[in-house]
């Protein structure tokens, strides 16, 4: 510690905390709006590419392969297949679900793109690729324009889907 005229200097400042906040008003866009209106009614309205026929769920308004707008809506059932998954055993700040829990990538029947969701009502050691699952929806009174209306996916008990049937979506 250096001194000045015999007096010790205060400790050097090594860190400052500067609060900073920005507020945004985000609108989802045309295609996500169509999708969220469906979700509000408990329906899954995916969109099909007019050129290659791929079905996007959730739709973002474009086909990522053809770079053209998707407009045609395709209603999907809330059943699908687990393509891959991850078991979360680590606690972290802001965790909303009790550990251990499973995040799964699920491709809904008729969709060409998996979506990310919670998987529950199933022992974590039994989760596997190819497992058949279905949506558990929140109560109609709790519905919001959000994919969170699907609380989680749970096993249907059907026989597993073959690897061939979902390998393209891994």
């Amino acid at each position, binding site marked *: 510690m250096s001194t000045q005229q015999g007096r010790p200097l205060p400790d050097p400042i090594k860190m*400052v905390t*500067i609060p*900073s906040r*920005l*507020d*945004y*008003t*985000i*609108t*989802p*866009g*045309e*295609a*996500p709006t169509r999708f969220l209106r469906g979700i509000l009614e408990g329906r899954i309205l995916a969109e099909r590419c007019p050129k290659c026929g791929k079905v996007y769920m959730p739709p*973002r*308004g*474009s*086909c*990522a*392969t*053809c*770079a*053209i*707008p998707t407009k045609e809506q395709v209603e999907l059932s809330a059943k699908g297949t687990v393509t891959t998954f991850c078991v979360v055993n680590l606690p972290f700040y802001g965790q909303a679900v009790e550990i251990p829990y499973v995040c799964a990538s699920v491709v809904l029947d008729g969709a060409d793109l998996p979506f990310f969701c919670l998987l529950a009502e199933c022992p974590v050691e039994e989760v596997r690729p190819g497992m058949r699952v279905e949506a558990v929806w929140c109560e109609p009174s709790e519905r919001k324009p959000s994919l969170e209306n699907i609380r989680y996916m749970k096993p249907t008990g059907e026989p597993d889907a073959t690897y061939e049937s979902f390998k393209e979506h891994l």
Partner: protein
Amino acid sequence: MREVAVVSFAQARSVRRDILRNEVEILMPVVAEVVAASGLSRDRIGFTVSGSCDYLAGVPFSFVMALDGVGAWPPIEESHVEMDGAWAMAEAFTRLQHGDIDSALVFCFGKSSVGDLPDVLTLQLDPYLVAPLWPDSISVAALQARAMIDAGLTSEREMAEVAVRSRRDARQNPYAQLSGDFSVDALLAEPCISSPLRRHDCPPISDGAAAIVLAAGDVARGLCEKNGRTPAWIRGLDHRVDAQNLGVRDLTKCPSARIAAEKAGVSAAPIDVAEIYAPFTHQEILLRRELGLDSKTRINPSGGALAANPMMVAGLIRIGEAASRVHKGEARRALAHATAGPCLQQNLVCILEGE
């Protein structure tokens, strides 16, 4: 140096707030238009690079989402700069120098309306000593305007004249947001919003997107011949950066713009048209001097950033607008300039020439 030309340009109409569409939906028709206008099929484009800013969107990695609008599957060679599309174009130009590919797509997008833009831009400033005071972008620009007026380099009247000319010219630009006939005296009768700046001295807040296609050598010649355009050859390109901290700069000067103009070769021959990215009126006056432009050069026939200022896009629009003048044969030699950061901290100068 390998010869590279701008072969096509497209832009979205700038609007104050595009509530209905997300970034991908704004961008997709622009990219489709620029690719179609280039004469190349999508699979012939060798490199794709974008410019955008997550702070505008309020979403991390928002540029990855934008790739949904450009057909990035099967995988493409792709890059991104967290800056105006003009700098994405500089990267594409550099990439084309390798000689293994002949064309590149450059696109950019920005929804300035989603957040509070003057506050978002505060976060460009020094995070320890300046940003915590939250000087917004208009106040920071006002410091520079005041310094210029105090130094006798401009006046509020001259600044108002820039606004009047820009908005009058913007009447001819279908993509502009602010246009019309105004009188200098009427504008000067308005109150200051951040002294000495009045509303007309500041750019509008705009949502928009733009894209260009670059091609090299004979590929560019062939494409432009087929489309009945003169290739807009990039004969000079340079960008420089001034110090970030406003306190260590003389705000009445802009050495980064002056050096970039020298290195790009502005003074080698007369400039017919210059598209200058000056978000504030006094900055056009400063840049005209630093870029070495005289009254023989037509400045901002598009109306410039005072007519439409989509963040991350307005710089590439300047390049596209200047290139379009060359494409149509209206200009033989054009200058395009882009800026980023507070008080013209970063500057890019591009010289475009016909055959």
